[in-house]
């Protein structure tokens, strides 16, 4: 297989694992990355093809999410843009001094999505210019002012050259004033300036406003407010604080507050945003995505969004990871969008791929009723691949019915919101939001069972309204879903209809795993790991991370012998009290190593040349071998030295991980031979 290393167009290059040529021991052990996918039935260029498929699917999903977000955000963005355009003209007359317009944008999710959207909107406005300031630009006043001024001034390409010595300093606001006077024209602002046309607007966007040094910002606002009558500056502050007004009150002095005229805008957030994005992206009948999220993913998404991080960035990240995982774990995801061409005379790898594909296609069918199909498909790759195409079509056709069901359900839920009694609302809450979708899609759960019971509580007027709303959708239904008996009550009719429509996607075709994530768990540890716990459990049970099984042993001491040095030391750490005497610790370590060594000598003398050292870590194991091979008193001296060295290395490893605090030499009579434990009360 050729690896296109030279091709700079490639964003990702897949280099298959070929084993470590230096060590023969390692190649015999299966690596964990290799157990994830099944290389034996993968195509030669499978990873590359799957990467392409992933990229297509993810780009489509991301575009859709982005456009929905833009739609959600556009009302607020429009308000802000409108406000910006009048910020310097719509002034209350009679104020003692002109105020500096300030707009705060509260984004509880703290993500950059909204600001990107807003910036593009503002850039599209005529006469408005935006300069972005970041906290690291403004470590002091001079740098902050310089960044602010150059953000505007440097837009002019053929600017006259300013000499450092004989021109105004780069942080002098008069530079900006001179530039503005030249390029934007200037007329005196009076208290009745609302009679003038809208003027050019200079917008300063401060990202992560909380991270700025407040004193620097106050000085900057003061300087700009002195010039505001001749220089139409507007400050946009992006905050994550839920209450911008009280944040400004708390962080600015009153004298600064008198200079500014703050308006507060909030970016939409909360569960509604999540629901809209999920439903419109994946369950919109008009829009086709290549991967449908399963109940587990939806559940995780909702939990993560509501419990941990209400940011759209994290939402997008989760979706992307889910896509990545989907396209890396299953070889058949190659077939997700298109079917690759395979010639009539397949290579051995292609043959393996086709074979397992055939098995997968017929996994759930009994041999009897599928035998003719099986034979036909087994004869030629073309027929098999055509069958895949048919399956794909079938899956998405059925999914479009599911989508229709979800749309009807959504219409029902929104139209009943706020109109019905509390009991109905409570009953309907089960199906609301992403969690409701999960319930609907999960065949293990009860689906839409019980919906009729809830709907029966509706008043007749509400029933009429509901059926009116649903009418346009049921007209589009295919024949088989049309209600057979129009006389039954609306509630039962709806429940039947929804149950028919909402067929769990995993029942649709045997190849469903290609297009549906189903019940595969989301790798949540990748997104939100518990570091300390992982480190401790890694030190305690290193074998569960390397994937190697320990030889079964009843004795605790025997287990110790099989561990790497740091883990041996860590076991001693766990047993100690608040403080550890380093010499005792070393003694313990030495005894373990010595018994390890004795065992190695024993086994090597028993089976010479066959199974060498069993100890972990090839470097260390080799060292032991070398020591064993050497005989005589000289080697005994060397062994002691090496034990000491290994102890020091392990000790420092624990030190770097932050487990140890050293006592000072001479302080408190400890003379440095004790170390303090920093992590106490660990349960193994």
């Amino acid at each position, binding site marked *: 297989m050729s690896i296109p290393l030279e091709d700079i167009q490639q964003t990702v290059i897949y280099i298959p694992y070929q084993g470590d040529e230096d060590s023969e021991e390692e190649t015999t052990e299966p690596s964990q990355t290799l157990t994830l996918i099944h290389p034996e039935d993968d195509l030669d260029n499978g990873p590359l093809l799957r990467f392409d498929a992933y990229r297509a699917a993810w780009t489509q999903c991301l575009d859709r999410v982005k456009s929905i977000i833009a739609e959600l955000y556009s009302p607020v963005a429009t308000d802000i843009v409108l406000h910006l355009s009048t910020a310097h003209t719509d002034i209350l007359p009679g104020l003692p001094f002109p105020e500096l317009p300030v707009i705060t944008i509260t984004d509880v999710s703290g993500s950059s999505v909204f600001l990107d959207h807003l910036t593009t909107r503002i850039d599209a406005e005529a006469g408005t210019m935006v300069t972005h300031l970041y906290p690291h630009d403004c470590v002091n006043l001079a740098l902050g002012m310089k960044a602010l001024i150059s953000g505007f001034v440097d837009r002019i390409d053929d600017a006259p050259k300013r000499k450092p010595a004989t021109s105004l300093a780069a942080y002098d606001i008069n530079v900006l004033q001179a530039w503005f006077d030249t390029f934007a024209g200037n007329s005196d602002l009076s208290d009745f300036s609302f009679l003038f046309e809208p003027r050019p607007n200079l917008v300063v966007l401060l990202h992560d406003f909380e991270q700025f040094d407040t004193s620097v910002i106050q000085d900057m606002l003061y300087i700009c407010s002195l010039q505001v009558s001749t220089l139409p500056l507007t400050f946009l502050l992006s905050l994550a604080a839920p209450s911008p007004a009280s944040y400004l*009150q708390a962080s600015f002095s009153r004298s600064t507050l*008198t200079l500014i005229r703050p308006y507060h805008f909030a970016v939409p957030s909360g569960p509604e945003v999540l629901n809209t994005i999920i439903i419109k992206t994946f369950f919109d009948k008009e829009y086709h995505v290549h991967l449908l999220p399963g109940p587990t993913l939806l559940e995780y998404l909702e939990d993560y969004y509501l419990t941990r991080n209400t940011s759209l960035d994290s939402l997008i990240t989760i979706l992307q990871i889910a896509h990545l995982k989907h396209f890396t774990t299953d070889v058949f995801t190659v077939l997700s969008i298109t079917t690759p061409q395979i010639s009539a005379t397949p290579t051995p790898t292609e043959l393996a791929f086709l074979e397992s594909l055939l098995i997968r296609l017929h996994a759930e069918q009994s041999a009897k009723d599928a035998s003719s199909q099986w034979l036909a498909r087994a004869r030629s790759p073309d027929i098999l691949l055509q069958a895949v195409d048919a399956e794909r079509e079938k899956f998405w056709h059925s999914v479009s019915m599911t989508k229709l069901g979800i749309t009807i359900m959504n219409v029902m839920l929104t139209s009943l919101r706020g109109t019905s009694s509390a009991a109905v609302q409570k009953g309907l809450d089960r199906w609301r939001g992403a969690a409701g979708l999960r319930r609907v899609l999960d065949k293990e759960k009860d689906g839409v069972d019980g919906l009729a019971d809830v709907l029966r509580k509706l008043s007749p007027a509400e029933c009429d309204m509901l059926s009116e709303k649903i009418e346009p959708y049921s007209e589009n239904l295919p024949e088989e879903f049309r209600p057979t008996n129009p006389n039954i009550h609306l509630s039962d009719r709806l429940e039947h209809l929804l149950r028919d429509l909402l067929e769990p996607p995993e029942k649709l075709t045997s190849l469903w795993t290609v297009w549906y994530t189903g019940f595969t768990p989301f790798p949540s540890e990748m997104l939100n790991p518990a570091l300390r716990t992982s480190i401790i459990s890694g030190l305690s049970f290193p074998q569960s991370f390397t994937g190697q099984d320990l030889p079964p042993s009843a004795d605790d001491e025997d287990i110790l012998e099989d561990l790497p040095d740091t883990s041996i030391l860590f076991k001693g750490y766990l047993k100690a009290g608040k403080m550890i005497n380093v010499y005792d610790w070393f003694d313990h370590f030495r005894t373990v190593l010595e018994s390890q060594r004795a065992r190695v000598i024993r086994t090597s003398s028993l089976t010479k040349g066959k199974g060498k050292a069993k100890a972990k870590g090839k470097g260390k194991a080799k060292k032991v071998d070398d020591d064993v091979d050497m005989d005589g008193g000289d080697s005994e001296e060397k062994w002691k030295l090496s034990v000491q060295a290994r102890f020091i290395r392990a000790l420092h490893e624990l030190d770097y991980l932050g487990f140890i605090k050293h006592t000072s030499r001479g302080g408190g009579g400890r003379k440095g031979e004790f170390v303090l434990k920093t992590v106490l009360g660990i349960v193994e």
Partner: protein
Amino acid sequence: MATGHPGYERLVYEIISLFAGRVPPFLYINDRISVRTTGNVVNSVLSSISRSTDASSRVYHAKINAAACITPRMLYDTILNQLVEWQVKWEDGCKIWPGTDEQRWNENLDGFFHGLKAAYALRERSNSKMVVGYSGQIIIVIERAERLPDHMPDLLVPLTRLAELTQLDLSVIFVSEVPWEDIRPPFGGSPDPYYIDVAPLAKEAVLHRLNSNFDALSSKAPTTPNPYHPNLRSLYSQFASVILDTCFLYVQDSNELQYIAAARWPGFVKSILPSAGDQEDDRDVDMVGDSLQPPSEDTRMRLIRTFKPSFKAALETLYPRLDHAKHWAAAQESRLGSSQESGSGGIPDRKGDEENEDGVRITDLPRMSKFILIAAHLASTNPPKSDLKLFGRGLDEKKRKRRRANTKSGGGAEKAPQRVLGPNAFPLDRLLAILGALLEENDVDRRLPPPEPYYTIPGEETDVEIARVGVYGAIIELSSTGLLHRTSASDKLDGPPTFKCGISSETAKQLAGQVGVALHDLLWDPA
């Protein structure tokens, strides 16, 4: 000249009389109430002197703001450019005044002295053509002089001794809100200035200022009906005096009073101005003139009676800038509209609104952040020793309650409860421990089942939960948004970071209600 600055007549006369003779080299004008107005008055008087054609009082005037001039170099440039009336132009690369022989003046203090001399010489040359025998004088006004020690501490002494050092006829005027004693350099480095203390304005003077401000606006205003129509002058004056009656006791700054008046006035006169709909119809000049007759005495009394309660509200909201004038005026207007319909008095209740708004935003926080905030509130109000009793597992409910009751009644000297004293600082570990206890009690059922059932010990999963990266990230994020306050320095690595709770107990209660925590039972000393 003094008529343009009502209330500042004394200051104006003092400056003018000083400039009639020989000006002291260093003046210090101190105004504790409204320094910005004083600075404007001084500068406008000086610039009118410098523009006057009287050759006997020729003045070269430069004004700088010590808060805006951030480096010595910027200060040199600004002063010299102003003295020679040099206009900075973008086209020639924002060049500063080059002097006569392209010398560089802004390198250091010595260069600046030479620059001053050169500037003086240049101005003198251009003047001597007109009147011989009189020499001009350089006046440098430095506003917000209290910021000089921050930005350029080394320049404070040279600036105060500038006349001596340059041997020029020169005077430096510091205008500041702090007294000279507070910024005076040590060891008598600076000579004692000529002090001018600006007394707070009298009520009449402020009224005069408000009225003249109205006159200035109405002269610029269009003839169509607007709040600043000349015919409304007498009503405004009455309005202003009522505002002063209400507010002058608390606020003497004429700017603040003007701010309040400007916020209230448009709403006040709105009812007697023709509404927008009428204006559309009445394009006739006559009609417009008719409609803006000064209101009758009766109307005035009625208006003032209706609006008087809102003056105090305006003071309470606008002086601390809980809201700004424009928004406040709009909010008042809409409130008045709704309250007139319902028939109740238009007394604003701004505070309630504000808190509701905060509450709405805070509900959007993720669930984990809510738990962290509740834990922080508990850690800040409960004494650390009570944690084990309140959250300790294994004790049965009865025992817990009894212990609490005992300790409470057995207290000796009456101590103020912590909720009155404000939040206590607590280390991160304590926050996480309380968070763990809260989650274990209230959040276990909601949790998603872990992918593999490898948590065997009860509470183990919670221990993992609170050690997740997301929790630490949320704590840092909350402390950056001000809902938690970090009390230890961020660059201190030794020991755990300490925090304080930044939310009120009301907000904590609200959050606890949302996530279903029985907060009252967990407080050591509930209100």
